[in-house]
């Protein structure tokens, strides 16, 4: 199945929902609800709450993340918001401000 890709010069203001893997290289404001993997790539700017199975952040994210499986913050990422996931990885170099809820 093909990924949905929000290109680097694209701005989406609203809600993105779907069952496919979502790759964000551009700007998304609003809300993201995905059944699969959500990847906020380096250079992307997201001001949205994100729900997904796996969520990987390499860019800038302002908003709350709920991952049903795993959240990963890559070394160059900047995240401000609350994180809820059973497994959370914060890489060395990642910037993060917010609450972590691992459901323990």
């Amino acid at each position, binding site marked *: *199945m*093909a*990924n*949905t*890709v*929000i*290109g*680097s*010069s*694209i*701005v*989406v*203001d*609203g*809600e*993105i*929902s*779907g*069952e*496919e893997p*979502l790759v964000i*290289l*551009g700007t998304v404001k*609003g809300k993201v609800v995905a059944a699969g993997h959500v990847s906020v790539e380096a250079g992307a700017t997201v001001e949205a709450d994100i729900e997904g199975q796996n969520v990987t952040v390499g860019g800038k994210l302002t908003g709350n993340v709920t991952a049903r499986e795993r959240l990963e913050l890559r070394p160059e990422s900047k995240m401000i918001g609350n994180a809820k996931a059973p497994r959370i990885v914060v890489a060395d170099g990642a910037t993060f401000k917010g609450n972590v809820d691992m459901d323990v």
Partner: protein
Amino acid sequence: MASEDTCYIGSKTTVRGQVSGKQDLVVEGRIEGYVGLESHLTVEEGGTVEADVEAAVATLRGEVRGPVTAQRSLCVEASARVAGRLKAPTITIEDGARFSGEIEMDVELPAGVTPGNG
């Protein structure tokens, strides 16, 4: 398959709201709201766009409802089902396409002919 320079909305994805930018956009899924591009919009067969659309070039193969304005050209291909107002300097409608609505092109009318109303 989408390259990094293309923006691609997959068949099981819905976007509600505004989509704008300078990259080519290919829609196999669904967009509701507004699309404003300085580039090429392609609505593939199976894709649905219910939106005000502005693009440099538009190629419609899927279902489109709403006014579509293209700065350069607009093509309604055979598999398309389109309802709304189309505006572009050149518009192509292929044999087999279904279209309901209004078409506007910038045409210089011959002297003595006044534009009608539909």
